[in-house]
């Protein structure tokens, strides 16, 4: 647990990260992911709780005795040192022989594609190159844990995608335990072995990207990951994990119970559906047919986005862009029962919605 004044920056954070794993802390800004990372690096000490590397308790070990290596959000490349000196720093601290330092620095610069730039100074490099130097500086010491704090947030969109592929590739090659912090869910999905979704200092779910995406355990996770649309209603029937919800009027929608927490007939419930899961034709599996009035239609290239009114609630639907839909008309869309996730209604829902 870590507190700043009366605010809990990180609370109930329990993580077990395996060797060689690429692990990501994902969450909105202020959710405690950077604080957690800084606790692992030793820049912050928790008010309670412990940090272990293998069997060793490092909770209060000084940052310089931990053997982690961090890539900072703003890179923190020392402006008074050349690329070579920046990268060599950790090795010089470790008092390695000169020739070995030189060999390893050049090797790692090769790995990140910066061979030949070792005499430049950080200010003479582009943002992407600075990023690579920061990565090289961390990798060269062969750290027990590589820590990356939103390393791509200062790059433009195209470069960001290229760099994340490279980081992933290098991590695979070196098989280095990596903890990555980001607020970008797409980045987290694409790069990680496992993801921990955090909000308000708590960890809400830990799992593979597929787990998090398809099987969210929590309404925050369900709405934070990907796009989603919500319907509220009352449970009218419950059969194992199959739930039927009355969303008002005559409309009844069947879905899959997503949360472990109990829900019974008569309870308030929230349905979470990904807009891309709707189809205009009935699918092969058990499905819901939902009728509504199209209020608004927006052609977005790869799909058309509709806003439909269903039982006085708004529904966001993505459909085939070739299908023409007139605003004001009645329209029926389909969604598989397994693609409708049912959560008990809580205060949190209102916040997210």
């Amino acid at each position, binding site marked *: 647990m870590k*507190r*700043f*004044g009366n605010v809990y920056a990180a609370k109930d954070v329990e993580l077990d990260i395996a060797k060689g794993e690429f692990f990501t802390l994902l969450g909105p800004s202020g959710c405690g992911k950077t604080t957690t990372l800084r606790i692992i*690096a*030793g*820049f912050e*000490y928790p*008010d309670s709780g412990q940090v272990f590397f293998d069997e060793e308790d490092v909770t*209060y070990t*000084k*940052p*310089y*005795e*931990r*053997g*982690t*290596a*961090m890539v*900072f959000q*703003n890179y*923190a*490349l*020392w*402006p*008074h040192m050349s690329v070579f000196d920046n990268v060599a*720093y*950790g090795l010089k*601290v*470790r008092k390695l022989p000169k020739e070995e330092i030189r060999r390893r620095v050049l090797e790692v610069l090769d790995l990140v594609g910066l061979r030949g730039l070792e005499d430049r100074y950080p200010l003479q490099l582009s943002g992407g190159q600075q990023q690579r130097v920061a990565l090289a*500086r*961390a990798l060269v*010491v062969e750290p027990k844990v590589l820590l990356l704090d939103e390393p791509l947030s200062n790059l433009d969109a195209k470069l960001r995608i290229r760099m994340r592929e490279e980081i992933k590739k290098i991590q695979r090659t070196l098989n280095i335990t990596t903890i990555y912090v980001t607020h970008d869910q797409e980045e987290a999905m694409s790069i990680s072995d496992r993801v921990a979704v955090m909000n308000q200092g708590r960890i809400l779910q830990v799992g593979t990207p597929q787990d998090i995406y398809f099987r969210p355990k929590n309404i925050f996770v369900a709405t934070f990951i990907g796009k989603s649309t919500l319907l509220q209603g009352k449970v009218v029937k419950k059969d194992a994990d199959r739930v039927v919800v009355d969303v008002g009027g005559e409309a009844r929608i069947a879905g899959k119970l997503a949360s472990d927490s109990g829900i019974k007939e008569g309870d308030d419930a929230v349905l979470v559906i990904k807009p891309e899961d709707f189809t205009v034709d009935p699918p092969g599996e058990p499905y819901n047919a939902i009728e509504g009035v199209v209020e608004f239609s927006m052609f977005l290239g790869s799909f058309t986005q509709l806003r439909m009114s269903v039982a006085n609630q708004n529904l966001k639907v993505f459909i085939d862009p070739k299908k023409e839909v007139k605003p004001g008309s009645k329209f029926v869309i389909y969604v598989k029962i397994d693609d409708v996730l049912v959560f008990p209604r809580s205060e949190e829902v209102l916040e997210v919605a």
Partner: protein
Amino acid sequence: MDIRGSLRYLDNVLILMIVFSLALFSLFLILPLADMISLPLAFTLERLVSGTKTGYSLIELFSDPRLFRTYSTTEPVKISQLSGSTLVNFIGWNFGVIPNTLIIASLVTLNTTVLGLVVAFIMARYDFRGKMLMRVLAYMPLLMTPFVNAFVIKKLFSFDGLFSYIINSVIGLPLKINVDGMFGVVLTQSMAFWPIVYLNVYSSMMLIDPSLEEQAENLGARGFKLFRSVTLPLSLPGLAAGAAVVFIFSMEDLGGPIAYGFYDVLSYSIYSNIKAAQNIGEVGAYVGALSIVLLALALAIFFGIKRYVSLRQYAMLSRGGRWIPRVRKPKLVGSLIIYLVVLPVMVFTAMPQIGVFITAFSVRWSRAYPEGFTLDHFASILKNPDVITGLSNSLKYAAIATTIITVLSLSSAYVAARSRLQTLNEVLDMISTSPLAIPGLAIASGYIVMFTSWPFKDTFLDPLSIYGPWLLVVLAYTVRRSPFATRVIYAGLQQVHVAYEEAAMNLGASRLRTLATVVIPLLGLNILSGALLAFVYSIAETSVSVTVGAIVAGQKPLTAVMLDFLTGGRLAGLQLAAAMAVLIVVTQLLIIFVTNVFLKQRYAFIGV
């Protein structure tokens, strides 16, 4: 965060820095002052409780007619006849030591505030021919010519001085003026200190977002209304800071009172009593009581203003928009004021420094103005063993002090900027900036009280021991001049992102190694310019130099030697002292030049 949690972030190097800073400031600033005030305070308490008089207490201060009078022994302005001309004597009042000190400081603060504010407004908001000249003129009084400028001003404004000569012989009016006594001190200090207000207000004004004034103008405020309702209130922090420093400097100044022989002020009373006490070997409760008054006034003003300024630090850096300083050409009335009033006043205030230079190169100054050109004075001071000793002493003391200051300032600034112990940071910030406000004379008397008695008696810290006072002088320079370096380094640390240090420690570098390879190289320029500034201000130090520093002849620093030349009734003493002042000014100019041109640092000026 609780204390125990914050303590975890400490390491040996940080602890060493904290201990070093606190120990140095405690031993050579806080304890001597506390020791000095304890004696009169004890007497006061005794007298209040038991009614018996055991020694000089604070109560005696108010019943001593030399210190407090309800009447003035002089008439402020007296008119008489002198060889066919009307002589107007501007003398001022004499209400006793404490009222005099307050009257002088108030008048000087008033004068410097008006002039500083006007010049700052003109420089910040107008563009005109000769602006560069005015900028240079405004810096002139800051050139350090300890004591000599006061003597030059006295000569310029005496009945047979340059001004009377111009009125009498050049213009031909049967009128002579003579400025003396309290008014002489006020004149001298006003001329010397106004740029402090100017620089503080100017930097405040340059920080005002132009759109704030444009908005007011857009709503119909113009001219004086705009100035009074927007510009002035937003410059108040700078104005208050500058005025506070001037008030404190005025109370502490020795040059003016010595030059005019106006001895009924706190600074001179403390000075002369320390001089007298040296022979007896102890400073009594009387000096202690006087020093308490001086110290209490200075600290009250300093911390009062500091609090006020911090409350009024408006966030003036608004987002977006263009930042085009609002400079415009003055209209006719504005031009007339600039060229006919402000510029002449500024030339006038630069005259003492110009006068010091002319004096140093002139053969004699027995009539209204200096005459003849010669380099003899420089030749003779460079042959004079007292001057050579003084010069080498000053260089030696300043060099050692600067070395200690560099470590001290780096320690206290680094801890204040980086430690997680909030309270400690605030305490350290307060202690390390307070020497700006603590009169050197209070420190001098504190040193003599504390280090001449147990357990320091006859040790190398005892100024009356066989070792002499030199080490104490060095330590006094260290404590008094460290704030100059501390501020520059602290400002630099706020520009260096903490991630640079975290990155180094993350890669395994200890705190010491991080300091050596990351912090110090990145702060190099700040450290160097802070050290240079501390060096030159150490050389020009007067209060401790002419008291503690003057105890042993062979250990006198240059400023003490200068005072000997000025007051010793020596032939061409003024010219010789002026030549020494020129040496100091040249050093100062060199250092300003280096910090500005090579280190690209703005000349750090004096403020709260």
